[in-house]
Each structure stands twice: as structure tokens, then as C-alpha cells.
């Protein structure tokens, strides 16, 4: 009996050891960026891009189930430039990314580039690189039409929803509370996803939803009655969006930046913006004066 028990014990140990070995070898199999990404794209004729699936209009699914969006159009521009650079057709491999996976997927090489609504932050810069900022927004509030909340001080004592992964937003509201702008403090209600937060707002569980104005405009546009909602408050924080790129890939980053500057200068960027954020776009959001200035500043001389 004892010998049998022993054998079983050893068998279990071996299985556990095997499982650990498999896990470690899988972890080690993650590609590292020893090689130049541009060389890899030329060799394989493929570029892997990560796009958002549920961030209207940066990357989302249409009613027909097609994957589309502002970020995706920027991705197509980069692929076109790659095809011109290498003189052959470069295939675009699309991969879904979300707020939790976007940084790790670029950092571990699963995707060569991640395009979505990602704010450039210094903390993120420690793990990945960013392109030039191509989109500028700021945090504002979404409230029911006619709500007494017009500005941030009106949030005093109210319940405010926000995404639990939106660090910059949470820090922004914390600073506003600490500085006495919102007094007495509002109650932060954290939602894992914006759409659940918006549902809670529609039901009156929270008084306002706080996040980037571009996201709020997307939420409003997707509402059953968009006219019942309004975006209020001045920008509490600025959120410059950048394209996520792997670290130590200077040539690749330069190429993406050159493509961005190129399409800003030749008007393609304005056309793409108009397609998604124009009056007839998916999310009507007029360009702010600050954003226009940013784009002008990015039109570097040749």
C-alpha cells in the first residue's frame, strides 16, 4: 500500500514538473525584439497591428460584424506607406487589443504596433514607446440633458462613474477633490467597462460619467436617444493619444511618425478625422482649438 502510494506521489510530482516545464517553455517562446521590425516586415511581407474592438470610433465592430474605425484607417495608411517603401504588397494582420492587453501585447511582440485610444503617459513610456500624439482630447462629464451638473464643482456629494482602468482619469478627479474643487468629495463608482458605466448612468445609479471627451462622444452617439445626453464641463485633464510601439525600435518609430506627419500635411488625416468625427461621422466631435494647434505644430517642414 505504502509503495503504491509512493508511486502515485511520484507520478503527481512528475506531472506537476511537466506542467511547470510546459509553462516555462511557453513563456520563453514569446518573441523578443532582437531583430529590426522593419526588416522583419520586409522579409515576411506582413505587419501585425493591434486594434480596439469596442472603442467607438477608434476601433469597433459594425452592425454587420465588420471591424472598422478611425485607428484602423490610420493603420491602413501605415500599411500603404510600407507597401510603397518596400515596393511590394504588405499584408495587414489584425489582432484585437483592449485596455488591459494593449501594452503587454506590444511589449512582448505579439503585435508590431497598437492603435487605439491610448493616452501617452510617462509611466507607460517605461514599458513601450509612443508615436507623436495624433489625437488630443481631455476629460469631461456626460450627464442627462438638463442636469444641474454643469461644471466640476457641481459634482460635490454626487456619484460619478469612471473606468477602473482609466488611471489618468481617476488621478484627475482625485486631484480635483484634494485641491478643493469638488467639495464635499464626490463618490467614485468604478466600472470595469465604459458601456456598463453608461448603462448605470442611464438608470440613475450615478449622476455623471467621467472620462475622455472622445469616449463620451462615442457613448452619446451609441445611446438610443443621443439628444437626451450632453457633455459638460471644461477639460479637467488633457489626454494626448499616441500609437503604441515597441521599445528600442527607432527606425520603426521614425517610419510611423513620418507617415503621421505626411498624412497630416497632405490632408489625408483631416479627411479620415472628418469621416469619423465630422458632422456626418460616427461620433460628431468638432476639433478643439488646442487640437488644431497640435496638428499645425506636427506639420513639420520637409
Amino acid at each position, binding site marked *: 500500500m505504502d509503495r503504491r502510494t509512493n508511486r502515485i506521489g511520484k507520478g503527481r510530482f512528475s506531472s506537476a514538473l511537466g506542467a511547470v516545464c510546459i509553462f516555462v517553455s511557453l*513563456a*520563453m517562446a*514569446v518573441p*523578443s525584439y532582437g531583430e529590426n521590425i522593419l526588416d522583419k516586415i520586409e522579409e515576411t511581407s506582413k505587419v501585425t497591428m493591434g486594434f480596439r474592438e469596442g472603442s467607438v470610433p477608434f476601433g469597433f465592430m459594425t452592425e454587420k460584424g465588420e471591424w472598422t474605425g478611425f485607428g484602423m484607417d490610420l493603420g491602413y495608411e501605415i500599411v500603404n506607406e510600407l507597401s510603397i517603401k518596400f515596393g511590394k504588397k504588405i499584408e495587414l494582420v489584425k489582432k484585437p487589443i483592449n485596455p488591459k492587453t494593449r*501594452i503587454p501585447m506590444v511589449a512582448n511582440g505579439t503585435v508590431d504596433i497598437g492603435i487605439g485610444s491610448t493616452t501617452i503617459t510617462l*509611466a*507607460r513610456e*517605461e*514599458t513601450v514607446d509612443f508615436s507623436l500624439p495624433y489625437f488630443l482630447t481631455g476629460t469631461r462629464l456626460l450627464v442627462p440633458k438638463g442636469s444641474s451638473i454643469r461644471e466640476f464643482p457641481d459634482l460635490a456629494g454626487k*456619484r460619478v462613474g469612471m473606468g*477602473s*482602468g*482609466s*488611471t489618468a482619469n*481617476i488621478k484627475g478627479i482625485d486631484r480635483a477633490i484634494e485641491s478643493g474643487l469638488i467639495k464635499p468629495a464626490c*463618490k467614485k*463608482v*468604478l*466600472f*470595469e467597462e465604459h458601456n*456598463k458605466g453608461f*448603462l*448605470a448612468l442611464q*438608470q*440613475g*445609479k450615478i449622476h455623471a460619467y467621467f472620462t475622455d471627451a472622445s469616449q463620451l462622444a462615442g457613448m452619446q452617439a451609441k445611446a438610443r436617444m443621443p439628444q437626451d445626453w450632453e457633455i459638460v464641463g471644461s477639460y479637467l485633464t488633457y489626454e494626448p493619444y499616441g500609437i503604441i510601439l515597441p521599445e528600442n525600435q527607432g527606425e520603426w518609430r521614425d517610419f510611423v511618425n513620418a507617415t503621421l506627419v505626411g498624412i497630416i500635411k497632405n490632408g489625408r488625416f483631416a479627411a479620415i478625422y472628418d469621416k469619423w468625427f465630422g458632422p456626418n461621422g460616427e461620433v460628431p466631435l468638432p476639433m478643439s482649438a488646442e487640437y488644431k494647434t497640435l496638428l499645425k505644430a506636427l506639420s513639420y517642414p520637409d
Partner: protein
Amino acid sequence: MGFLNYTFDWSVLWRHPYGGMFVKGIFTTIHLSLLAWIIAVILGIMIAVFRVLPPRSIRLAGSAYVQLFRNIPFLVQLFFWYFAVPLLLPKPAQEWLYDHVPDYSYWAGVTALGTYTASRLAEQFRSGLLAIPLGQYRAAYSTGLTTFQTYRYVIVPYAFRIIIPPFTTEFLSCFKNSSLTMTISVMEITHTAYYIDSFTWHGLETTTAASMMYLCISGFIVLVMSFVEKKLRIPGMIVRSQ
């Protein structure tokens, strides 16, 4: 300490204010699961008894409850309690609810977890009730006990002793399912780990810490339950696992 170019920084776990948040998260997980468990046990026993009682309508009602709550995924039920149930109330009542029950998400979580676990527990209790020899019923009735008294003093305690092992497993499931309440904005252990990860970019440390917390609490529960199992074992029945 490094692993695959990742540098571990465990100090994130006790750094202010994250350490305090984790402690709060642990307490939330514990009292949420305990409250849900109390609901589940009371409701579970009632439904299990309904399922074996002779009147057909009562049996059907018990059966309907089990089928409804056991067959819908817990996550869906959670959304139902949080988003849909308040809509059944008139508008002023809803406003009153949100204004006066600020932790509505917590109570929705407790209710969802309690009612869902009750449906699974009821089936385990039922298997315990069915395992009781007919002689026990006859003996109870022959001493002049009513049906209610028979169940209250003889059958339910006897069945309870039989089902302690699956009962422990079910409690562990209930405890672990509490992590899903993060989707309705309850700040329990998992949501706290997710939140701290967003700020610190040390997801591996926070996730490992969360796993350890679950493991420690589960380990403690198993210890207590094995003690209870020993104490309550049916006289004369050999406990072979010891």
C-alpha cells in the same frame, strides 16, 4: 528578482494607499461571501425540502427555482440583479434606492451570489435527504413527530452531516464567485488588484497577491470545515479519508 525581463516590485502591495485598499478588499470579499452563504444555506435547505415533499405543486416550485437559477450563468444573473431588477420598481422608488443604498452594487452582488449558490446547494441537500434510509422517517413518525418536526429534528441534521464535503466545495465556489462582482463595480479582492495594477503597472505582483489571499482564506475554510466534519461525523460511520 527578475524573470523574463520583468522586475518584481513587491513593495507595491504595502505602499500607501494600496495596502489599505487590499485589506479593505479582503474584508469586502469575506463579508460579501459570508452574507451570500447565509442566504444560500437557508434558501437551499428550504428548496431541497420542497423538492422532496409530497405535494406536487410545492415540488414543482422548488424544481422551477433550481432550474431557473442553476441554468443561467452567474455573471448573467449578476447583471440581472444589478441592472434589471431595479427597473421593476417605479421611478421614485428607484431614485430612493440609489440615493439611500449607496452600496447598491454590493447588495445586488450578495443577492445574486446567495440565490445562485442556493440553487446548487439545494441539489446537494436533496441528495443528502434522499440518502437517508426510510427507516429514519418511520422511526421519527412512530415517536409522534409531525412532518415539520421530523425534518427539523431528524432528517435535515442527518442529511447535513452526509453532505459536508460537497458543502465545503460549494462554499469555496461561492467564495471564488464573489470575484465576479467586480463587473458590477464592487471593490473586492480581484477588483482591487485590477485597480492597483492600472496605477502601478505591476499586474503580476497584484495578481499573485490576490491569488495568495484567495488561497489562504480557502485554506482556512477547508481547515475549519474538516474540523466540523470530524465533530459532526455520524456515529458508527467510518471516516475513511482520515
